[in-house]
């Protein structure tokens, strides 16, 4: 009865405040809006109090840092022990161009590498294939062969640095190239650290860089789980990504729900393969967006950790606490960057980066202010990195763990987001699971609806975007352009031709034939892909073998 009495007293106190203090204030000065909404159109109340807390106790909802359910963070010391990894997503032009950018970023204090690949690479085409026309190096680096991969990391300590690679449909091939490049330098695979994104489900839902249909694609993903847990145990074989779901238009709640639903789908596929959940779950990592709405974003990360811990322990029966941890990378919201007055993007990125840090991220990419126009130039990329360094070393937010924990507002938002995700899990279940829901276009339509609603809110000025629909100036931004050179393209094409001419043709043919047979059987494809890469098969050749065996995905058309 005690709790109920307390609640009643709190409620009486709220009513008293509303009558005596709030009402006269509202009469003399009405509020600016009838309804206040988050970036995701979630209504926000005037004031949050202990009355907004769910029935559960703090011990159940929050726990302590480094303990179940990890709402406050996955480490007992968080950033007091070690700062997040400052990992800047970079890539353009040839392997030489991007190698130079990596070295520049390392020289300026970044602490992890992150590779952006160009469109042909993302779709499993070599630079000189007709499908790649016009796309070489424009939004990432072109990697068509082991030779390119070796150049990309030349002079960089691959045994010491952790490397993240944003690659999905051809993830196992690109990973094999990285492993073979390390091997050729005598670096043992067992100690290699890094991440391949390898999250095909969100490709069908949002990012759209798919090649094969869902089932063979999932098989390839599980092949990497299995191979990684045996041979490259420090490697994150997947980064389950909400980032692109959000960029495509989803709300924070949808980003959270769809990402975790995908995460659980990978767990099911791993278990169905016969893997023990505690053998592969610790190498699953996550990737979330850091958007404008500070509190909603922080709540999203906290809810994500809590849901994942609960599902892993209670639904999937994981025993190792390490399997319960949701470790995540975050990136500020590219979609929030404006082409108008681009320098103000630095401020947006700062707020977004702050959200990620207050939400307990393990690594962070901060966008450069010129990205509404181009792949960032050097100076813009450096400012973006400096933004993180200021957050880490000047703002004071890294001094204590989960500094906003216990905020009535933040805790209520965290609970709300968790409930929203649970409702989505039920809907996905009703649709037959993640893959049937993809086939029905469920995620795609939900995301498109949210994107359209958001744009309408901007059009109707229900939402102010500084520099776009308010506080507008009439001036052309001046930016230092970054261009991929014709010389880079020619050098890349020449290297590919030379590779094809000089390799051992028989060895190459045998390796691709064995890969084809492996794809047709149930064998793990990773060792076969590695052999093909060592035999100097190109990315396009390997993916052609798979395209022939697995077929090509065709997405439901909707908007």
């Amino acid at each position, binding site marked *: 009865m005690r709790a109920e009495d307390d609640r009643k007293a709190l409620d009486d106190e709220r009513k008293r405040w509303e009558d005596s203090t709030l009402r006269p204030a509202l009469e003399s000065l009405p509020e600016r809006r009838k309804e206040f909404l988050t970036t995701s159109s979630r209504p926000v109340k005037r004031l949050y109090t202990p009355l907004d807390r769910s029935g559960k106790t703090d011990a159940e909802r929050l726990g302590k840092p480094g303990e179940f359910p990890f709402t406050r963070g996955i480490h007992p010391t968080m950033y007091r022990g070690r700062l997040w990894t400052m990992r800047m997503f970079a890539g353009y032009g040839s392997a030489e161009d991007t190698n130079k950018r990596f070295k520049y970023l390392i020289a300026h204090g970044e602490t992890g590498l992150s590779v952006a690949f160009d469109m042909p690479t993302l779709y499993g085409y070599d630079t000189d294939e007709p499908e790649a026309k016009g796309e070489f190096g*424009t*939004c990432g680096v072109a990697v068509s062969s082991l030779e390119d991969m070796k150049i990309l990391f030349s002079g960089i300590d691959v045994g010491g640095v952790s490397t993240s690679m944003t690659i999905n449909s051809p993830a196992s091939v690109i990973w094999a190239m990285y492993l073979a490049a390390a091997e050729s330098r005598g670096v043992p695979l067992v100690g290699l650290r890094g991440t391949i994104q390898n999250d095909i489900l969100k490709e069908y839902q949002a990012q759209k860089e798919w090649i094969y249909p869902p089932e063979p694609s999932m098989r390839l993903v599980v092949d990497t789980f299995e191979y990684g847990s045996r041979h490259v145990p420090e490697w994150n074989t997947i980064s389950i990504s909400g980032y692109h779901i959000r960029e495509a238009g989803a709300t924070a709640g949808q980003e959270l729900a769809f990402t975790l639903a995908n995460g659980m789908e990978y767990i099911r596929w791993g278990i169905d393969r016969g893997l023990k959940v505690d053998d592969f779950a610790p190498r699953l990592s996550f990737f979330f967006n850091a958007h404008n709405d500070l509190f909603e974003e922080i709540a999203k990360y906290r809810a994500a950790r809590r849901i994942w811990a609960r599902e892993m322990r209670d639904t999937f029966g994981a025993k190792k606490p390490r399997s319960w941890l949701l470790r995540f990378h975050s990136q500020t919201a590219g979609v929030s960057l404006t082409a108008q007055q681009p320098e103000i993007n630095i401020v947006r990125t700062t707020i977004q980066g702050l959200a990620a840090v207050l939400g307990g991220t393990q690594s962070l990419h901060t966008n450069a202010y010129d990205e509404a126009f181009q792949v960032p130039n050097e100076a813009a990329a450096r400012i973006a990195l400096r933004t993180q360094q200021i957050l880490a070393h000047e703002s004071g937010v890294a001094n204590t763990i989960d500094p906003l924990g216990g905020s009535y507002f933040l805790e209520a938002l965290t609970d709300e987001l968790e409930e929203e995700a649970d409702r989505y899990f039920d809907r996905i279940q009703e649709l037959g699971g993640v893959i049937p829901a993809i086939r029905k276009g469920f995620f795609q339509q939900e995301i498109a609806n949210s994107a359209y609603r958001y744009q309408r809110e901007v*059009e109707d000025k229900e939402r102010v975007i500084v520099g776009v629909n308010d506080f507008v100036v009439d001036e052309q931004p001046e930016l230092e352009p970054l261009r991929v050179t014709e010389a880079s393209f020619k050098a890349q094409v020449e290297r590919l031709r030379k590779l094809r001419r000089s390799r051992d043709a028989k060895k190459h043919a045998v390796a691709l034939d064995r890969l084809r047979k492996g794809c047709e059987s149930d064998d793990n494809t990773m060792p076969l892909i590695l052999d093909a890469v060592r035999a100097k098969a190109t990315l396009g050749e390997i993916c052609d073998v798979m395209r022939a065996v697995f077929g090509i995905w065709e997405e439901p058309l909707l908007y």
Partner: protein
Amino acid sequence: MVPIAKKIRVLIAKPGLDGHDRGAKVVARALRDAGMEVIYTGLRQTPEDIVEAAIQEDVDAIGLSCLSGAHMTLFPEVVKLLKKRKSGDIVVAAGGIIPEDDVPKLKKAGIQVVFGPGTPLRDIVAFFETAGKGA
């Protein structure tokens, strides 16, 4: 009898490998809401695919979207092929991540208008309304 106005027909297309379809879909929906007939091609269309679809569907205008940086190769190719197929009267508009320097070059190549990030939907709708009536 009030004559039924012919609906303006627009093809929204994604040339090349770029998978960023948020903008294209939002524009498609805005045009549909404004009463136009919209055909969305889906992803990974070659300039040939796009021109073929535009002629088959008898559209008044095409909206091309590309955020991957391949616009200088792909957009002018669409205009060139339209002319080759004697369909140069189909208006071509474009949008995406397009550096300022490229805009005059695209216009010279026959792209009527380039809508940069942050363009209000009403401006895009107004453009296609005019383009449709002119055709």
